[in-house]
């Protein structure tokens, strides 16, 4: 367990964590699994929390998400799934077996993102602890050799080393961007040979400075916020409920499971979560474009509702697409609308067999709407009647009798009914879809030539049904209905918060430069009265502004004499540590953070 403290996941070791050297030579090589299960576990954990595996899991996640956009999914398009299974019986069955019709809840998709998050936690927690220590730490000591650093500068000044150190430290401390340490080194005799040789040097003063701790903080905040996001989404799944209700003008519904047409809830949902409010649809209005370019395109839908909250408070509100209302913590959305004509049907004996509003579902942009009426046998001995109706809001009847709607608004409503007689299956006790008529045990009503009879009814009219089956009456007013979605998800605020925190952390970590600057200065033994100054810079990741930072620090030295030479070319050649871009031949005035290129600016481009 003692190795815990020194262990760092492969690939992320940070040149900054080392002792100020230019690069950390390779992460600890992944251990060959030691004998025994503990070694095995440790090895697995190391692999899992390595950057390489995170990368592979991310790629896997991207690939695994794709099939769900190509194949129909149960959650989004159940009818499409059935159709696919019908068209591809064999392959469909296999795809189904492996969860390809519910990709995002499938075991393999879940396994990928859960592993990714385990990896993330395993990677980020040790990093966070390391960062917490760094935050309290000081900038690393000034390294002995500068030559290998990606950004260098040097100069000569008439100021004393003490003044140089003081001025540069003050410059770096300004605006609190840098954490700065000032130190002194005693005189040193020459030592070492070859590459590692260090010449003799008099006593020096040094500055060690570091900025951009926020970069790592942002990165950690970002990753941890992703974990928070995942957890809050999962909680929302467990606690949420969602219901759909169709409400016609003048009618209402109460927030109770039984009042919804469909209702769906998470595993931890309790019915007490439904606050007892009620809602009435006072009116519905729609508006469609009538110009040539966008003819009949929807422009506005508004539902005017009265709400009585659980507390007894009453209010009038409007629901629009894009503008749900919130009642007692639940959001209510306007998801659809249509016509719910009032129909009264009497049977052959003159008894009212059916009376009520029937929601017709719009099937095209002109609101040609289809509905089904199931007329039970009220008078003994009569057959049941089934009707399939088309409601045309703005009907135009052609010469051959074919009718169609030419505008979505009810300018000239017409109802076209086809009739069936026989057994509707109402008495079997099997719940039926109110929008479908099962014609298996029904016979169409036809005329003498065997043509199906179509019954046309206009609002306010009563029309005789063929074969003396009875009459049908269409109400004078055609009420509208709205399809409302009601949803309650207590995790929404958390989901939003974690997303925004993640984005903020991301931006901070990507755009905060993390830099170290060192300075060493000493009295030039050859030239009394002259002080030598050398600076070096190191950055984390790509940082085109590093050389500018070093140059600015040099410019802060008082009393500079000769223009300093650029000596960075060779250093750049060596500086391949952790993607540090070579900062070549960069003049001091090129100090912007977002320098893009290695060649001197050429502005006469246009």
């Amino acid at each position, binding site marked *: 367990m003692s190795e815990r403290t020194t262990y760092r996941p492969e690939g992320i070791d940070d040149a900054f964590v080392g002792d100020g050297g230019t690069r950390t030579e390779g992460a600890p090589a992944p251990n060959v699994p030691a004998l025994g299960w503990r070694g095995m576990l440790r090895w697995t954990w190391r692999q899992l929390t390595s950057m390489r595996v995170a*990368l592979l899991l991310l790629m896997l996640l991207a690939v695994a*998400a794709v099939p769900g956009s190509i194949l129909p*999914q149960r959650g989004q398009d159940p009818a499409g799934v059935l159709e696919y299974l019908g068209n591809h019986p064999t392959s469909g069955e296999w795809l189904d077996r492996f969860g390809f019709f519910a990709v995002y809840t499938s075991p393999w998709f879940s396994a990928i993102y859960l592993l990714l998050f385990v990896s993330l936690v395993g990677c980020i927690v040790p990093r966070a602890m390391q960062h917490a220590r760094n935050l309290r730490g000081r900038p690393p000591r000034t390294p002995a050799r500068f030559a290998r650093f990606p950004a260098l500068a040097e100069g000569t000044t008439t100021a004393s080393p003490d003044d140089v150190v003081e001025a540069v430290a003050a410059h770096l401390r300004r605006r609190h961007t840098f954490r700065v340490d000032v130190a002194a080194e005693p005189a040193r005799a020459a030592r070492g040979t070859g590459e590692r040789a260090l010449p003799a040097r008099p006593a020096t003063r040094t500055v060690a400075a570091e900025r951009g701790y926020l970069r790592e903080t942002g990165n950690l905040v970002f990753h941890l916020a992703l974990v928070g996001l995942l957890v809050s989404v999962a909680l929302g799944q467990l606690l949420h409920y969602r219901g759909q209700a169709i409400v016609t003008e003048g009618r209402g519904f109460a927030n109770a499971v039984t009042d919804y047409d469909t209702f769906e809830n998470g595993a931890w949902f309790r019915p007490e979560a439904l606050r007892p409010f009620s809602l009435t649809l006072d009116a519905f209005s729609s508006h469609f474009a009538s110009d040539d*370019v966008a003819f009949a395109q929807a422009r506005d839908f508004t539902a005017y509702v009265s709400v009585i909250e659980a507390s007894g408070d009453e209010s009038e509100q409007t629901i629009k697409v894009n503008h749900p209302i919130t009642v007692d913590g639940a959001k209510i959305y306007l998801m659809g609308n249509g016509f719910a004509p009032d129909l009264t049907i009497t049977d052959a004996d003159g008894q009212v067999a059916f009376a009520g509003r029937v929601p017709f579902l719009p099937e095209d942009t002109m609101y040609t709407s289809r509905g089904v009426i199931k007329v039970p046998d009220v008078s003994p001995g009569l057959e049941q009647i089934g009707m399939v109706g088309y409601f045309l809001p703005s009907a135009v009847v052609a010469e051959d009798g074919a009718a169609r709607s030419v505008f979505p608004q009810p300018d000239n409503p017409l109802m076209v009914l086809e009739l069936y007689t026989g057994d509707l299956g109402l008495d079997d006790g099997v719940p039926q879809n109110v929008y479908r008529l099962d014609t298996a045990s029904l016979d169409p009503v036809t005329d003498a030539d065997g043509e199906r009879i179509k019954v046309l009814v206009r609002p306010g009219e009563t029309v005789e049904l063929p074969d003396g089956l009875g009459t049908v009456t269409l109400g004078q007013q055609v009420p509208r209905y709205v399809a409302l*979605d009601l949803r309650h998800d207590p995790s929404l605020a958390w989901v939003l918060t974690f997303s925004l925190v993640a984005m903020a952390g991301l931006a901070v970590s*990507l755009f905060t430069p993390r830099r170290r600057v060192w300075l060493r200065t000493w009295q030039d033994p050859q030239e009394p009265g002259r002080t030598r100054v050398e600076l070096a810079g190191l950055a984390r990741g790509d940082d085109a502004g590093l050389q500018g930072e070093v140059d600015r620090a040099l410019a802060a030295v008082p009393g500079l004499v000769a223009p300093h030479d650029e000596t960075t070319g060779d250093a750049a050649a060596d500086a391949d540590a952790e993607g540090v871009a*070579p900062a070549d031949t960069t003049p001091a005035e090129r100090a912007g953070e977002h320098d893009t290129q*290695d060649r001197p600016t050429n502005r006469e*481009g246009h």
Partner: protein
Amino acid sequence: MDAAYLSTLLVWASLVALTIALVAFSIDLARRTGERGADRARELAAAGAAASGTAGTATSAAGSTDAGAGPGTTQPHPVSPDGAVLPPSGRAAGIAMSTTWLGTALLLAAIVLRGVAAGRTPWANMYEFTLVGSFVALAVFLGFTLRRDVRFLGAFVTGLAAIFLTLGLNVFYVAAMGVQPALQSYWLILHVGVAIIATGVFTVAFVASVLQLLREARDGGAQLLGTWYWLDRVPNPTSLEGLSFRLNAIGFVLWTFTIIGGAIWAEHAWGRYWGWDPKEVWSFVIWVVYAAYLHARTTRGWSGTRAAWFVVVGYACVLFNFTGVNLLFNGMHSYSGLTAG
């Protein structure tokens, strides 16, 4: 002549200007390559004389890799030859830059007029998306040229923009009109606007990464690229990678916002913030690919060339998300104004 008609006319005009720019940029690249070859021959001759080594002939020098071009450099892709100050810009470069500015300005005017004609923000369907996306890519490029010489990107950025505009005019075009209720939200401005900016930024970054890959392949001695001398004129792979990274970082943050904004909007419009609609799936895939790219760049053995491939894959996903997802899949994002096929 109404605003909508004038707008379309301006798009055509912009397309013409950009095509001229494309040709001029290509000529400029070729011209510079010629001079470069001559430079190189001189350089090598000098180096050869100094080191009494065997300098190549002018032809083989121009065609060969950079390695060993400058004495005293130890890295595989020396900076010095590229770091040389460019020859003063010639006529072709001047024409290229001014026509790019002109084309971009015309495009901006076309976009504004389109908004006037439709009476709303001019980015609500694929046609308008191509206009604005091309404009952003051009603007990012032009913005860069103000600070730095990135003319080597010009041929590619104007070329891509010209392709996009041609596609837009011929395939995606729809008449200017208002939008359906689901789109009537300020999120149209924010979510779609930021998505387009992100796409424009990703486009320029993609160009940089492709150049990086080509340059790397050529430096590595790829036979096929042997005669693509103009590649010697683009910066070295390391600085191309840096340029691509900085742009991709910006693009990635914008894309993150696009997704968050989209989720907020979906929560308002559709009653759920995430529903694995095809557009959502592909936006997610893009996000994950670019996240993988950022991780690749910090992973030993994956930075450099491999990371650049992530950019290529990521950008392919961006294009597919825009075209394929709109045209092939039937999702809730079917706002292209075209019918799904």
